[in-house]
C-alpha cells in the first residue's frame, strides 16, 4: 500500500515539475512551486520524516511562495517566452550529462529502503539506541538536531540570521516602485477586507498559540524552534496582510525584530559559551545541571527557544523589507 502511495506522489511530483517547465507566467509558476512543496511534504510523511515534512509544508508550500508573490507584486507577473536555439540545446546537453552521471552514480547504491544499507547501520543506530538514555526525550530527530549535531543547528540559525541581514542590507532605503500598482489592484474602491479581517481576528490568536505548542512540543513529537518560528511569523504576516503594514509595525516595530533576531542567535551561542567557560567543550550541555539528562533537557529547551526567536523575527523582518517595497511603512 505504501509503495502505491509513493508511486502516486512521485508521479504527481514529476507532473508538477514538468508543468513548471512548460508553463509561462510567474503566478502560475509560483502556485506550482507551492504544490511541489506540499507534495514533497506528503512524500516525506510516507518516508517517516515527519519533522522534515512539517518544515517543508511550512517553508516550501508557505513562506517561499509568499516571498515569491511579494516579489511578483512588485515586479509584475509577466514572463517572456523562453529562449530557443543555442541556449536550449546547451542547457539540454548540460542537463542530460549531469543526469546521466547521477544515474550512473545510482547503479552502485544500496537498494532503496534496505535496512542493511551502510547509512542505516553505521552511525544512525547509535542515535536510535542511545538517545533515549543519554538525552531522555522521545523525538530522536530533536535529540540529534539539538544535541549531537547542535553545532550544525547553530550554523542553521546563523544562515537564517545572515539571510535577514542580507535582505535588509539589499532592500534598505531603495525605491518603492510598485506601491501604487498593488494598492489599485487589490482594493480599488478602498473598501477594507471586512470578511477576511473578521476571520483573521478569530484565527490569528490560535495560530500564535499553535506556534507556542509546536515550540514546546518538539521534544515529544514533530516540531521545534524552527517550525514554531515560521508559524509565529506567518501569523504576524497574515495580520500585516489584512490590516496593513503600518498597523503591524506599530505592534512589532522593525528595529525590535532586528534586535530579537540577534538576541535569538546570542541565546543559542551563549549557551555554548557557558559550557566553554566551565571547561567543557562548546555546546556541551552537561555543565547546565548536575544530572546529565536534566542538563540535556535544559540545554535543548534554551537553544530551541533561541532558534524560535531568531526564525520568527528574521522572517517577520524579511516580510517587512519586502512589504515596504509595496507600501512604505513608518520606516
Amino acid at each position: 500500500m505504501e509503495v502505491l502511495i509513493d508511486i502516486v506522489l512521485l508521479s504527481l511530483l514529476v507532473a508538477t515539475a514538468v508543468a513548471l517547465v512548460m508553463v509561462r507566467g510567474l503566478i502560475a509558476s509560483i502556485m506550482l512551486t507551492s504544490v511541489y512543496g506540499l507534495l514533497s511534504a506528503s512524500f516525506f510523511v510516507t518516508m517517516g520524516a515527519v519533522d522534515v515534512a512539517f518544515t517543508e509544508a511550512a517553508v516550501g508550500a508557505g513562506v517561499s511562495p509568499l516571498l515569491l508573490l511579494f516579489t511578483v507584486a512588485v515586479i509584475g507577473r509577466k514572463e517572456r517566452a523562453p529562449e530557443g536555439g543555442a541556449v536550449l540545446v546547451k542547457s539540454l546537453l548540460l542537463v542530460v550529462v549531469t543526469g546521466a552521471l547521477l544515474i550512473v552514480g545510482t547503479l552502485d547504491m544500496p537498494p532503496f529502503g534496505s535496512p542493511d544499507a551502510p547509512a542505516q547501520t553505521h552511525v544512525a543506530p547509535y542515535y536510535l539506541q542511545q538517545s533515549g538514555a543519554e538525552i531522555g526525550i522521545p523525538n530522536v530527530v530533536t535529540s540529534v538536531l539539538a544535541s549531537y549535531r547542535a553545532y550544525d543547528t547553530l550554523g542553521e540559525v546563523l544562515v537564517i540570521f545572515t539571510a535577514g541581514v542580507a535582505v535588509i542590507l539589499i532592500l534598505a532605503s531603495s525605491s518603492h516602485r510598485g506601491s501604487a500598482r498593488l494598492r489599485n489592484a487589490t482594493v480599488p474602491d478602498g473598501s477594507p477586507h471586512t470578511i477576511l479581517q473578521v476571520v483573521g481576528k478569530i484565527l490569528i490568536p490560535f495560530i500564535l498559540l499553535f506556534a507556542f505548542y509546536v515550540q514546546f512540543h518538539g521534544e515529544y513529537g514533530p516540531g521545534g524552534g524552527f517550525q514554531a518560528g515560521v508559524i509565529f511569523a506567518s501569523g504576524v504576516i497574515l495580520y500585516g496582510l489584512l490590516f496593513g503594514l503600518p498597523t503591524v509595525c506599530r505592534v512589532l516595530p522593525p528595529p525590535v525584530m532586528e534586535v530579537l533576531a540577534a538576541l535569538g542567535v546570542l541565546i543559542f551561542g551563549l549557551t555554548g559559551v557557558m559550557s566553554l567557560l566551565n571547561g567543557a567543550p562548546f555546546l556541551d550541555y552537561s555543565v547546565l545541571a548536575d544530572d546529565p539528562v536534566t542538563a540535556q533537557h535544559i540545554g535543548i529547551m534554551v537553544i530551541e527557544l533561541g532558534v524560535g526567536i531568531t526564525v520568527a523575527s528574521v522572517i517577520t523582518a524579511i516580510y517587512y523589507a519586502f512589504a515596504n517595497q509595496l507600501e512604505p511603512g513608518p520606516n
Partner: protein
Amino acid sequence: MLSQLPVLPVLLPLIGAPACALLRRPTLAWVFACLVAVLAFLCTVSLFTTTWQEGVQTYALGGWPSPWGIEYRIDLLNALVLLVVSGIGAAILLASRASVWQEIGETRRGLFYVACLLCLAGLLGIAATGDAFNLFVFLEISSLSTYALVAMGPDRRALLAAYNYLIMGTIGATFILIGIGFLYMLTGTLSMADLGERLPAMGESRTAFAAYAFIVVGVCLKLALFPLHLWLPGAYTRAPSIVTVFLAATSTKVALYVLIRFTYSVFHLEFSQLAQALDTVFIALGVIAVFAGSLVAIFEADLKRGLAYSSVAQIGFMVIGLGIGTVEGLQASLIHLFNHALMKGALFLALAAFILRVGSSNFSSLRGIGRRMPLATAAFVLAGISLIGIPGTAGFISKWYLVLAAAAQQQWILLGLILAGSLLTAVYIWRFVETAYAEPEGDSVIQRNEAPLGMLLVIVLLALLNLYFGFDSRLPVETAGGAAQALLGGDAS
C-alpha cells in the same frame, strides 16, 4: 582554556556577528568587528603554533565524539588556511574604514560589518571543520553574506553580479550537497576522517566516483576554476573595493582548501583509475586558466577587472600544482595559496586606496598616480613584482616550487607553460607601472594625496610581507611541505 583553542577562531566572529548587530553606531560596529577579527587572528596564531609543535588537534563539539557528533580536526593544512584567512581578514577590516565610509551609505554601514563578520566566520568554519555536512552549512553562511556584500557595490551592475554569483554559487553548493548525500549513502558517516577510512574499503564504486565528480564541480564553481569562473570577474569588479580585497584574498583560498581536503583526505588519490585522468584535466584546465586569465587581464581597460582576471589565472597556477599530484606539486600549490593571499591582498587594497582618492579604477584615470600616492603605488608595484615571481619576493618561492615539481615529473612542456604564464603576468603589471610613472599627466596639476594612514599602513605591511616571505620562506614552505606530506603519505590524520 588551551584545550578550547581549535574552536575559538571560528566562535569569535560567529558570536561576534549578532552582537555586532546590536550596536547601533557604525563606528562602534567597525571597532567591534576589528577587535573580534584581531582576537580571532591571535587565537589562530596560537592554534597554529600548537599544531606545529604537537600535531593534530581535535575538538569534539558538544562533547560528542566523532562520528556521532561534529568534530574539529586541525592539522597543518587547516591551520595554514585558518592563519591566512583570519590574518588577511583582520588586516582588511582594520584598513577598511575610509573606503567603506566612502562607498557604503550611512544606514548600511553597521550591518555591512555584521555581514563581514559572518563571512569571516563562515570561511573560518569551512577551514576548521572535520564534518562534511557542517562544511556545507558554513559554506552557505559565507556565501549568503558574500552575495549581500557584493550587491553593496556602487553601480547597478553590482546587483546583477551578485545575482549571477548567487545562482552559480547555489548550484555549486547543491552539487556539493548531492555529493555528500552519495557519500553518506555509501558509508553511513559524515565525518571526513571516518569517510577517509571507510571509503577505500568500499572498493571501486560508481557512486563514489559520481560523488567525487559532483563535489569537484561544486567546489570548482566556488573556486572559479576555468571554465566555471564566469561569476568572478563581475563580482570582483562590481563589489565595493573592500569586499573585493576580502574575496580575492580569502574565499578562493578556502575553496581550494576544500578541493584538496576532499581529494586527498576523503577520497584518497588512488581510489579510482578515473581520478588519475582527472589530474590531467586539472593540469589542462589550470594551464588554460593561466593563459586565458592573463591574456584578458593584459587587454583590460579597467585595473580592477584586470586584477580579477589575474585571479582566475593565479587560481590556474594553484590547480596545476594540485594536478601534478606529487608531494612537491601539492606543496607548491599550498605555498602559492599562502603567497597569493598576500599579493592579492596588497594589490586590491592599494587599488581600493586609488579608488578612494581618484574615484575610478580605469587606467586612464590612474595616470600619474605614482606621484600622487607614492607609497601606495610603490606597495602596489612591489606586490605586482611578487605576482610575477621575480627572485627576492614571495611570488618567486611559489613559482620556484611549482617549476621544481614539474621538473621532478619530467613535464618539460608544463614547465615552459608555467614560465610563459608568468611572463604574461609581467606584461600587465608593467602596463600599470607605465601608467603610474611614465605617462604624461592629465590636465590638472597633481597634488600629493596619500591614502589614509590606517589603510596605508596595512598596504605597506602586506607589501613588505611579500618581500619578507621572499627571503625567509620557512613558514609557508615548511608548513606546506608538512601538510602535503601528511596528505599524500596516507597518514592524513
